[in-house]
């Protein structure tokens, strides 16, 4: 069966003050119906821009090449009307900071029903009924009253629940969640993650979960993509990515991540910083920060190549090291 979302060789270039800036290079990824897929990487690695591309929300002047098919529709060929039909009803989005993503001067009810009425052609009363069900589904207490409330009357976690209900209102098949728990208290995060997983199980919703926290991936997703400097550097089942990372960047990310009772001294920060767009070195973008770098890394960016049945890595050195080590 064809995947619900099939992105192939996607490249995005944004206009910059000194000429075009390439942001995404050769990004390929798929999301199946009802699947929770993780997209991980440091800030500025192109995760969010991928999401914007898939919703047609790129700034004016952006150049996009490659293909992105969603449920048989060629997204990149859509006109304004086509995008309007896809957004909300096909692909919906949950933003990082619910406080910023909810309109402060419109009631939650209004924000829940307005696109429902456009996409599902509901009258006011049925839209309100569905809104109450949705708020109930995301576990917001007293939904009738919540409909009349403004976002600032909610706590942070409740706002994100409301934002998720809004995203789901027009029955999308794919939800892109862009770091939906980053702006929330740690105690609230788990609730939001559990909610997303439950919605996936109950409604067959596919979720692309964007995060910089690899730990979140392990708890939630089946497959993951690791982004670095606008490229996918490694992909595979989440468990394997986390327990046996192949790309040096994935390994370094895991090494830099505090967990459990680990002493601070044993954390290994990655030296250097990711290259700014347009300033990536020739060859592998991670090469200047990589402990495994060889002369071969400095010529062309390594393509994403399969190393196992369901795993691909964009590295010319490490996969071979491991093979020979075995």
């Amino acid at each position, binding site marked *: 069966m064809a995947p619900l979302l099939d992105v192939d060789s996607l490249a995005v270039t944004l206009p910059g003050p000194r000429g075009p800036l390439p942001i995404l290079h050769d990004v390929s990824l798929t999301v199946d119906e009802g699947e929770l897929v993780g997209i991980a990487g440091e800030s500025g690695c192109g995760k969010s821009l991928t999401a914007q591309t898939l919703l047609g*929300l790129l700034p004016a002047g952006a150049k996009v090449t490659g293909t992105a098919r969603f449920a048989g529709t060629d997204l990149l060929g859509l006109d304004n009307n086509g*995008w*309007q039909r896809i957004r909300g009803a096909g692909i919906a989005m949950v*933003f990082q900071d619910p406080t*910023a993503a909810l309109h402060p001067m*419109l009631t939650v009810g209004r924000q829940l029903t307005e696109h429902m009425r456009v996409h599902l052609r509901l009258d006011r009363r049925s839209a309100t009924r569905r809104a109450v069900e949705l708020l109930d589904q995301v576990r917001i207490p007293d939904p009738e009253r919540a409909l009349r409330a403004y976002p600032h009357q*909610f706590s942070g976690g409740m706002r994100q629940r409301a934002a998720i209900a809004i995203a789901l209102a027009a029955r999308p098949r794919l939800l892109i969640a862009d770091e939906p728990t980053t702006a929330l208290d740690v*105690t609230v995060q788990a609730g939001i993650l559990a909610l997303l997983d439950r919605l996936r199980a109950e409604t067959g919703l596919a979720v692309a979960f964007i995060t910089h926290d690899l730990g979140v991936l392990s708890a939630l997703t089946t497959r993951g993509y690791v982004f670095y400097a606008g490229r996918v550097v490694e992909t595979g089942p989440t468990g394997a990515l986390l327990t046996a990372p192949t790309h040096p960047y994935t390994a370094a990310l895991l090494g830099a991540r505090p967990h459990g009772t680990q002493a601070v001294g044993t954390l290994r920060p990655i030296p250097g910083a990711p290259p700014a767009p347009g300033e990536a070195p020739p060859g592998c973008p991670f090469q200047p920060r990589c402990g495994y770098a060889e002369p071969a890394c400095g010529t062309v960016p390594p393509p994403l190549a399969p190393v196992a049945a369901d795993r691909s890595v964009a590295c010319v050195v490490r996969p071979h090291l491991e093979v020979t080590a075995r």
Partner: protein
Amino acid sequence: MTTVHNGEPGAVTTTAPRPRRSHPLLAFLAKRLAITAGLLLGVTVVTFGLVNVVPGDPVTANLSDQALNDPATVAAFREKWGLDQPLWQQYLHYLGNLFRGDLGISQQTGRAVLDDLVRYVPATLELAIPTMVLALVIGTGIGMLAAVRNGRVTDQLVRVGALLGLSTPPFWLSLVVLYVFFYKLGLAPSGGRLSTGFSPPPTVTGMYTVDAALAGQWDVAWDAAQHLTLPVLVLTSLTVALLVRFVRSAMLEVLQQDYIRAAYAKGLPARVVLRRHLLRAGLVPVVTVSGLAFASLLSGTVLVESIFGWPGVGQYAYRSATALDLPAILGVSLFVALVYTLVNLTVDLLYGLIDPRIRLS
């Protein structure tokens, strides 16, 4: 109304739908009115002081040379207006009258200042109201358009246009408009409130167009409306130029917000996003500037009123000031102070209406 931040999950975070909402509003209004009263009192002190320290003598300003040469006339004038008393006594006397609603008699017109204001303020209102309505609609429209088309040709044109509008002297624009529409095209009358041959309609509001319409005198209403066109055109273009810049920058800031991207991401048509999401959020700063613009229109636009022979507050203030007509100056100052405080109060109330986060607590 308070924001309750409760822990997750299951906490009831919405607050009760304000059962007795009028109470905080009344308290707020009472407080604001008290402040207004204090402010007006301050205005009387300052104006009274200023008018009395400026070089110039109401006597020389108001009496003819011949009368000035007659000490008896001068003394009589001084006594009549209380100018022979010490300043603090003059002030207390004035204040006492003020509390009885007596603003004094204008030395220029010989009428009660209050009567003068009742006569001149509606004329200014008749200019200010249509100007403000037109300027708000046009200014918000153009400003939003420029913001949405940020950086493109439309935006550049709007910005240059607004700059030109702002740097155009009002009197110059008035003269150009008169030359084109009155002299060359003959489309509109040159000035005044009514053509000769028409008499003012029975006074209800003091605004001729409204009063004439109320009295069913449609020919008078139409003539009065024609007389409004040119001054309103001039004032509107100047106010639009001012508003456009504010609207544009306010809307640009809102356009950066996540909630606008979120509105697009929901698949809402652009016109809904702009009208419902962008306009609402961009209005708050616009309301502030519009309030100030409206207050300044109400305080009279001296140059425009003079050129178009419009008997409004601006002209009255100008003539009183040049004649050192103390009661009239004080009356106009009080009126202007009142206008600004009332406009500010309205602006504050509008904030709460637009943005629930700053609703009165």
